[in-house]
């Protein structure tokens, strides 16, 4: 009985409906699977694919076909938003993901608030949405996941994070003003992606962890703006996956307040226990990317089995994959879930 499409299975999991087995996906964005092996064998390579919709779509397909992940994920970085907002980006190399060379502004007080309609039409949002449209047309059975950078992380990529973090405490009014602005842009990005056919929006917010912010600021800044963004996406009847980096002990009680349809966590989090404590939560994760890079296929299969036994709803890597991860290791993960 394998006639259920990956798209339906993922949507069922996100809608808390019974599934025959958990989906196994890789959300893209900061957690993409564009490993060197796939790029070399397919000929669709980074950094070129960051800037060309056709290439972006082709690379997403190659990743899906070769790894066995049951989704298509775009883009392959978390700099689309920061670049649009004025930060200087280095697009990276085949092996190394894009990064921010210089943040656009020196403090919240210096942020220039631009017209959102204009911004949506510029930068790489159009490249992501064009790639999304193409993928939706060519692969109706597969869910297309568009990955975005969370509000705090976006803000911390247009203002030097060392300054922005201090302003969260010293200048809350300024910090909120910037977070409202970037959240509006993210909502527009999500809307355009959904118009292009995105099945799911995934949000990664690595700069907004409980470890960095502590519970009070996690509540005030992370939960608040993530929920504004999630609600806006829900109004377009599209589910949201949220990835939280790092340890979550200090913010654990706040997790159920997050409105996202699934919560993905890092490898150090005991996801089975989290699910036990909050049965209403749809959990995603969290196969160690360290194991994926350095482990053996047997070990990876065993760890994947464990996640399945614990009842994790969606199986995925726990963090960004190293580009030197091997296909054999990734396949050990996907094939274990697929029972191959």
């Amino acid at each position, binding site marked *: 009985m394998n006639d259920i499409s990956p798209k339906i299975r993922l949507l069922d999991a996100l809608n808390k409906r019974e599934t025959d087995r958990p989906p196994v996906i890789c959300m893209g964005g900061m957690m993409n699977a564009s490993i060197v092996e796939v790029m070399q064998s397919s000929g669709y390579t980074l950094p070129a694919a960051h800037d060309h919709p056709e290439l972006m779509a082709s690379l997403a397909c190659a990743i899906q076909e070769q790894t066995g992940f049951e989704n298509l994920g775009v883009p392959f970085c978390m700099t689309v938003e920061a670049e649009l907002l004025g930060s200087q980006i280095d697009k990276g190399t085949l092996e*190394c993901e894009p*990064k*921010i*060379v210089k943040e656009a502004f020196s403090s919240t007080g210096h942020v220039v608030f631009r017209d959102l309609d204009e911004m949506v039409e510029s930068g790489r949002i159009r490249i992501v949405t064009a790639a999304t449209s193409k993928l939706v047309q060519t692969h109706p059975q597969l869910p297309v996941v568009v990955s975005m950078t969370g509000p705090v992380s976006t803000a911390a990529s247009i203002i030097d994070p*060392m300054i922005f973090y201090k302003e969260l405490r010293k200048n809350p009014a300024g910090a909120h003003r910037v977070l409202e602005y970037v959240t509006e842009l993210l909502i527009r990005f999500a809307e355009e992606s959904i118009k292009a056919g995105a099945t799911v929006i995934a949000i990664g917010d690595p700069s907004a962890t409980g470890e960095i912010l502590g519970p009070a600021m996690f509540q005030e800044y992370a939960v608040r703006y993530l929920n504004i963004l999630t609600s806006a996406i829900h109004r377009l009847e599209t589910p949201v996956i949220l990835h939280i980096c790092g340890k979550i002990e200090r913010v654990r009680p706040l997790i159920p307040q997050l409105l996202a349809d699934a919560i993905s966590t890092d490898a150090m989090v005991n996801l089975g226990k989290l699910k036990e404590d909050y049965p209403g939560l749809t959990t995603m994760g969290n196969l160690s990317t360290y194991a994926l890079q350095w482990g053996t296929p047997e070990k990876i299969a065993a760890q994947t089995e464990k996640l399945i036994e614990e009842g994790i709803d969606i199986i995925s890597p726990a*963090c*960004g994959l190293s580009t030197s991860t091997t296909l054999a290791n990734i396949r050990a993960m996907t094939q274990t879930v697929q029972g191959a």
Partner: protein
Amino acid sequence: MNEQTEQLYFTALSDAVLNMEEDTAINIAHKVIAEKIDAYRAIERGLVDGMNRAGKFFEDEEYFIPEILLCSDAMYAGLNILNPHINREHQRSRIKIIIAVVEGDTHDIGKNLVKTLLDAAGFEVIDLGRDVPPSKIVDIAIIEQADAIALSTLMTTTMDGMSEVIQLLQQRGQRESFQVIVGGGPISQGFADRIGADGYAPNAPAAIKLLNKLFGKNTYA
């Protein structure tokens, strides 16, 4: 000035750092100079004491990154005023540490925390910043005749740069010249062992303890 009155200034400096009050730290530092109180002791018993208390709060998870960054601003603001007034006798030779975030990673919060606590602990720190190529790290460590190299990363994708630093040191026959320690989100003791690092620390206060251990001191306080 009697010892008790001096201690009031030291406590005020320490509290200013702990309470993230940069302006207060500056004001009191100026008063310390005006009152001709020993600048070295004001740094040790005031600013550094405050940063150590802040570090303890951080370990205990009462303070998080925004707080610790503001504490370190207050400490450095005070240091800028007091440092030029330190007596020569206190300018002893210190253990020199090169610190950097390896190439490809632009996250440098953890590294900055370690740097602040190393400063507070009396190490001499050369901060190469973020996104530094392994060859540059090795070059500067050799030129500066540093004692240790501290490397940080927050992303799994840039961990390889750490082992590259160690390989480069080996190639140049300089591996034994430096203690190499690694840390950051995705790093583990297992990874440190695998690449042949001398130590691993899971967080900034632990990095200071590790270096103290490697160089034969007891604690950083």
